[in-house]
């Protein structure tokens, strides 16, 4: 067996790959939040950054495909591992007190992940597909000031804002376990640094989704 296959096809290799894609998505989410947050501060800045992200060749044709690959990989690998893990216990316990030894969030990553997948479907339908159609299919003339209006328009409907907020609550639950777990799977566990990583993970898991919800509610309230 080649070293490559032996390493990446193993249980640890798969977990490491899962962790690397998670860390990549964590970094992506932070930059996504920072860009979206500029819409609260300045319409002009948000339009400028969005225009840059939308037109830059590196972002569009290198970073975007890497991101899409990372998202798909994380979900597909998550499902593969879930199926394998379920298969490892074919007869269930009549009584299993999971709450006695582990957190709810750590035991239900598949369900929080499924809600996020549902949200991403909505997000693709809402943003990504119209954006790709606008730029690469319909070849509409570019208006560098269209982005802010489009963002605000998405948050006009209270039902949409509600779904958006609920999805981010599930993202927070996913991150409450996922952030520190990605480090552990990568072999990063140190008596000096791990307590700090765990605290940072909790802060990130709450602050970033709360920030996204704040942006949605802010634009909703500004329109009503």
């Amino acid at each position, binding site marked *: 067996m080649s070293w490559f296959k032996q390493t990446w096809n193993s249980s640890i*290799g798969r*977990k490491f790959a899962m962790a690397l894609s998670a860390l990549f998505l964590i970094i992506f989410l932070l930059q996504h939040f920072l860009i979206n947050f500029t819409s609260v501060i300045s319409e002009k800045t948000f339009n400028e950054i969005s225009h840059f992200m939308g037109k830059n060749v590196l972002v569009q044709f290198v970073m975007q495909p890497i991101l899409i690959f990372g998202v798909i990989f994380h979900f597909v690998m998550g499902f593969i591992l879930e199926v394998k893990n379920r298969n490892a216990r074919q007869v269930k316990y009549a009584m299993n007190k999971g709450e006695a030894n*582990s957190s709810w969030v750590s*035991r239900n990553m598949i369900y929080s992940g499924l809600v996020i997948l549902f949200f991403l479907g909505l997000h693709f339908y809402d943003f990504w597909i119209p954006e790709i159609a606008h730029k690469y299919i319909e070849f509409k003339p570019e208006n560098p000031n269209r982005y802010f209006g489009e963002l605000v328009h998405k948050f006009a409907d209270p039902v949409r804002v509600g779904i958006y907020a609920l999805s981010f609550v599930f993202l927070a639950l996913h991150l409450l376990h996922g952030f520190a777990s990605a480090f552990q799977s990568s072999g990063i566990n140190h008596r000096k640094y791990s307590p700090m990583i765990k605290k940072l993970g909790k802060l990130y898991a709450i602050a970033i989704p709360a920030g996204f919800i704040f942006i949605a509610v802010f634009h909703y309230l500004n329109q009503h």
Partner: protein
Amino acid sequence: MSTAQGLNLTLKVWRQKNNKDKGQMETYQVTDISPDSSFLEMMDILNEQLVGEGKEPVAFDHDCREGICGTCSMFINGEAHGPGREITTCQLHMREFKNGETIYIEPWRAKAFPVVKDLVVDRGAFDRIMAAGGFISVNTSGNTQDANALPIPKYDADRAMDAATCIGCGACVASCKNSSAMLFVSAKVSQFALLPQGKVEAAERVQKMVKVMDEEGFGNCSNTGACEVECPKGISLENIARMNREFIKAGAASEHSS
């Protein structure tokens, strides 16, 4: 001599004739159980009662009855080795239960640990993982070097000793929602990888042990930490991170594959 009142309990016990049998939960009543008796002693009383009634006694694993051999298993009321921390079933006492309580007693559940009979499971998968690399190759010609001739930092020696306290009971597999054996394997990898004698074969060892672990059908670790909480010897998750490092390092750097 304790004067505490005896316990009357309802036991829901997994009964399975053999590996082919489907098995089912059976209900038994035991009365006047001393709170000072161990859980295994309570099981002995149940078995005496069953033998007296002309019924087949419940098969369960036990050996040293002092928490060092790792033989006694049992998933009691939804937890490996029952309630209480850093104990095996033989160290669990009936004072942990209330009079009138119903207690669920099940075998370790994992595809890699097939049920032999009732509460007895085959933990041979652990032996096969150990045989794949859980050792150091030492020249036994009679000129073996004194281990104390090698200076080892106290911190490393302590960590290796902590990992080596694993008794291979399988509570980690039983507690893990994925039936992962990574706490066990990582303890065995770590106890050697931390010491100079073990470093020589570290890369080959971790690759071989992980390969057999995967072949045996254990699940993947998802870092819930249930294993660490239920482990009778308090083996730390740090070991799993160390095994991950050792494995990734071995895959990237070693020039051979196992």
